[in-house]
């Protein structure tokens, strides 16, 4: 496969536009589904009503504005920012897990310390870290060039940094995010040309290490056990299957789903795909898969035609961030994978995740828009302006 050369910025503008449309469609579907799946749920004795949908809507607004802003900035400004972003991420993760951090900075929610509060803004740090790691990996892979094929000089620095970050996230605890971040880093390296033999070796090590971590946390072992030994009538995953299955071809109708009535916990986040499949049926499943498929197709198209290696790796990482997460989420709800706490990008309830995903889309669009614009390649302090100055 050879990448089509992009001769001028306007040539493939439809790609970035379609990307934005697909994203907006998924976000809108998400808000509607969250409203349906959460409005009758009680949290701390109060009926949630429209409050989750409203929260998600504000997240969509903020994320949408950030996306538009980021899309107009040359993604290449991120290259020099990669290290500072990464170090800030590590610092944030350390602050969160330190036992003496006051709870107004790092509150404990549902038994895990995952949130960071800065002034009025509260966000799930690992969501931001996810983005920072992709940018950093893309930057380092670009810098290493052919060196990534070597183990010591090429792969080692990645392993060290990814190991530190995954370890810190594991301590929150948030195993699925740790695995996902390692996976995304791996995908960027894979795209950059790292040796497949190395991946096989690392994969083996990861499986062994992962199993040990799983055994140390009871709920994880239980989830794995449930996956391996089949779901029982009362389990979350079984209820997910009941919901999906009873959707049949056309679904039970929007808002008519019953599984959210306390049968299926977190129908608005960790199991939102199940709620969609129940209410919209097999057609809804196909629609959602198609939307994500278009997204991945467009993302990888942009990656192939990106102006430089950094853009290519970054685009691969960002696309994978959406595509792989979505796939894992769907696989979990369909009992193709053990239960994890992964959300469906753009759709599931969660403001941090939504904003970060939208910012990621903004970067992706920026990469797409910069194709055929060699002006900013040197990486100036104001690439946007630099781009306008170079008319060719």
């Amino acid at each position, binding site marked *: 496969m050879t990448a089509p050369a992009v001769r001028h910025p306007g040539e493939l503008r439809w790609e970035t536009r379609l990307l934005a449309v697909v994203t907006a469609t998924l976000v809108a579907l998400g808000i509607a589904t969250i409203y349906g799946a959460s409005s009758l749920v009680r949290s701390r004795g109060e009926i949630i009503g429209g409050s989750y949908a409203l929260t998600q809507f504000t997240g969509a607004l903020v994320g949408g504005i950030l996306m538009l802003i980021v899309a107009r900035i040359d993604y290449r400004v991120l290259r020099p920012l990669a290290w500072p972003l990464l170090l800030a991420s590590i610092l944030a993760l350390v602050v969160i897990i330190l036992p003496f951090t006051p709870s107004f900075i790092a509150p404990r929610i549902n038994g895990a310390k995952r949130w960071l509060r800065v002034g009025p803004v509260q966000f799930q740090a690992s969501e931001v870290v996810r983005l920072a790691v992709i940018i950093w990996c893309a930057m380092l892979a670009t810098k290493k060039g052919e060196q990534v094929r070597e183990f010591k000089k090429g792969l080692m620095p990645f392993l060290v940094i990814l190991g530190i970050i995954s370890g810190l996230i594991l301590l929150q605890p948030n195993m699925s995010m740790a695995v996902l971040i390692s996976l995304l880093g791996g995908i960027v390296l894979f795209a950059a040309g790292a040796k497949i033999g190395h991946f096989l070796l690392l994969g083996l090590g990861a499986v062994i290490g992962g199993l040990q971590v799983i055994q140390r946390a009871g709920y994880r072992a239980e989830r794995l056990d449930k996956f391996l030994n089949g779901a029982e009538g009362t389990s979350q995953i079984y209820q997910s299957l009941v919901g999906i299955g009873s959707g049949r071809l056309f679904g039970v109708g929007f808002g008519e789903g019953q599984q959210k009535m306390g049968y299926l916990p977190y129908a608005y986040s960790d199991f939102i795909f199940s709620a969609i499949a129940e209410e919209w049926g097999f057609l809804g499943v196909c629609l959602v898969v198609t939307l994500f*498929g278009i997204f991945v197709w467009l993302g990888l198209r942009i990656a192939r035609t990106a102006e430089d290696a950094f853009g290519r790796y970054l685009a691969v990482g960002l696309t994978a961030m959406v595509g792989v997460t979505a796939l894992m989420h769907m696989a979990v709800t*369909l009992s193709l994978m053990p239960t994890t706490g992964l959300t469906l990008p753009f759709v599931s309830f969660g403001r941090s995740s939504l904003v970060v995903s939208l910012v990621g889309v903004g970067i992706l669009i920026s990469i797409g828009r910069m194709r055929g614009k060699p002006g900013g390649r040197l990486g100036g302090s104001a690439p946007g302006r630099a781009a306008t100055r170079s008319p060719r």
Partner: protein
Amino acid sequence: MAKPAARIGLLQAMLLLGALAVVGRAGQLQLVEGAKWRAEAEQSRKERVVLPARRGGIYDRNGDALAVTQEYFEVGVAPNELRSPVRDARTIAKALKLPVARVQRDIATKKWVPYPGPYNGLEVQDLRGLRGVYLDGEYQRHYPAGPLARAVIGGLTADSGRGASGIELALDAELHGAPGEAVVLKDTRGRRYVSPSRLEREPVPGRDIYLTIDAELQEIAERALEDATREFEARGGDIVILDVHTGELLALASRSRDGDRSVTNRATFFTDPFEPGSTAKLFTAGALLTHARVDSTDEVFAENGAWRFPTNSRGAFRTINDVHKIQGNVTLAGAIKYSSNIAMAKFSERLTPTEQFEALRAFGFGSPAGVEFPSEARGELRMPHLWDSYAKASVAMGYAFAVTPVQLAAAYGAIANDGVLLTPTLVREIRDPGGKVLYQHRPEPVRRAVSPAVAARLRAYLQLVVGDGGTAESAQLANYPIAGKTGTALRYDGGRYQDGHYTASFAAIWPADQPQLAMAVKLDDPRGSRYYGGTTAAPMTRAMLQEALASRRSAIDRRQLVGPAEPTETAPAPEPEEPAVSRVVFGLPLQADTAARPGRRPVPNVAGNSLRKAANTLHRRGFRVAVRGSGLVRRTTPVAGDSAGFGAIVTIWAE
């Protein structure tokens, strides 16, 4: 650089594979297995709920409530669902009789407000249909008369709400009704969503039971017993009052205390037999009259109050004493009047053991009286071939056999009822919830115990007892004569008769000339200075009757009391039916061959069999048998195939 492009292509292919797997799996679940999962979902979301049926009430003969089931409500308010919080707060406060300010304060919290109550249906009437106000109803059993007649009424089990004792248990099938059924949606936490509920079957409320008990007479009896046990320092006692023309039990009081433990009122009038002593002399007298072994002038020598009764041919003897020592000879009437043990022992020598036994059997001793009650003792009456010569004398004096207070009252009722023994009953009517009478008690003759002429003679004897010089003179009423017999029996305890411990009793019919009531009053072990039946139970009876007469409404028929001056009003006592329709309960020992375990078992089909064969079959299955009619068996109640408990009575209808 072609390499990255190939890698990206590989990545894309893997993601596509993943997407295909997702779609494939979804297709499998939704298209192939869809119907199964949907059925699964339906099933787990629906729940069959039992709609409890209102349990029937238990009332006294005049309709006074003794046990009723009422629906009580718990009220819950969801403040944010109220249409008009200000107006609704006032409505709620008024209905629940709470201060308005408090309700307003509760509503202002915007949180669910529970008012547990319980409130009855009338109180929450205005709250029905008010948006945001939720009523949670529950049936509760309630005994408005408090402890009155509780031994008879019984109670419910705590968990199931089924009868546990007394009438509640005996007639549970009538009272319980049939619960309804509905299908409701529910979530995993068991919260039910009522709106799409579907009623499968309406609950059918239970039937109302009207007892034969007269609450007023019952209260008089209970109070009299309480006073008497205190006054005479008795361990306990029983009072049974029944209507002699119908067999209806009007009052049943009991108290018992074991050792120093607290007083209970078990239904000892059904369950605890006692040796009746002199109150039973009348039945031997009845046998003597029936077989014409004495006439009114026959006399026996009363031995001046002490008689050595030879117990074997080698000269062994036991001394029989009389409290009321009679000099010279005495007639049968005198023997009853003065309660002479010696005279009765001597007269009884004119009867064979079988004749004596049959006389007692005829009055219903030794077999359950057949009251609708879960537990009833048969009493004790040994077969005559087991009697020795002293046992015969003992039986004549009222020892060596045991009767329950209800049996004693029923037997005296037979004497009052011209010799026909009626089955005593507790149930007067059963009505459906709409008030339609489904069952009405009719007098159920068991058998003719003695001829009307003999019954009249026996009544005449009884009048002597309470006449001048009789042992129960203190029982006499000024206006309406009472006829009765006292008894003071030594208590048999720990294998021997206990000197100084007595059972004082008095069995009576009233009024003497046109009897309406038969009574058995018994005191266990009175410890005071007085312990004779004549000085304890007899005056108690008089006090009770005086109270009953003074009360506005009791089961006493005043028109009959006006007396024979107005013949039109003295409707003749209902001609007792000859026992063409006889009801015999065989009390054979219940040793079932089919199943050693007690429990419910099917009634076998015995239609077409002879009575004897049918009864045998039923006995082997562990049932008791009541017979209606004679000839070949036509049917049974419960019908063949129905199940009934171990020891339940199966009635055989024969023609």
